[in-house]
């Protein structure tokens, strides 16, 4: 099956810093999602982004499907950005089953 790798596995930032999280995948995909899980376990669906760039406040995401990667940018990080960020890809061929990466754990210190 398709492989999804996220980097870095862990990231520690000072409040106000910017960061870039990466998601690499091993095959063509129909879609890609980014999720945030806060330290209390609540999951939030951030973006559906099969290609191109989307922005939502301080967060933006870019997927370059032809090169099989996606990037999540966090600008002016806040302590509330702490948690784990997951990407999930839907492989091509009509299968919906999303495959998740292992996540990037982010800690933002005040």
């Amino acid at each position, binding site marked *: 099956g398709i492989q999804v790798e996220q980097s870095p596995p862990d990231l520690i930032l000072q409040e106000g810093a910017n960061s870039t999280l990466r998601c690499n995948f091993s095959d063509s995909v129909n*879609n890609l999602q980014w999720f945030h899980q806060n330290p209390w*376990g609540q999951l939030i669906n951030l973006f559906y982004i099969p290609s191109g760039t989307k922005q939502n406040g301080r967060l933006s995401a870019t997927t370059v499907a032809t090169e099989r990667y996606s990037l999540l940018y966090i600008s002016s990080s806040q302590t509330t950005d702490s948690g784990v960020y997951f990407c999930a890809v839907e492989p091509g061929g009509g299968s*919906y089953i999303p495959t998740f990466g292992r996540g990037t754990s982010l800690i933002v210190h005040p």
Partner: protein
Amino acid sequence: GAGVSQSPSNKVTEKGKDVELRCDPISGHTALYWYRQSLGQGLEFLIYFQGNSAPDKSGLPSDRFSAERTGGSVSTLTIQRTQQEDSAVYLCASSLAGRRETQYFGPGTRLLVL
């Protein structure tokens, strides 16, 4: 308004017993998803319901797992003859329409099989 709710929040059971997990989606949401999250396997998709269509069961790990959605609203995930490897957090999400809509997640049910 009310978000996605799940019950119970925690469940401890003995190996071999059956368990039922419940999900109440956001009112008016036609799509419902079940996932599970465990330390060993990470996040996994289990099943997807869209309206009155037949569910996409392609993520269910074995035939001990089944799910139904009554009246297009509440869903129950049933695990028969539980095994220790079924221990995980089971997460439910709903979205307004199809798979490309934003999913809203419940708090999860933490299942421990002894």
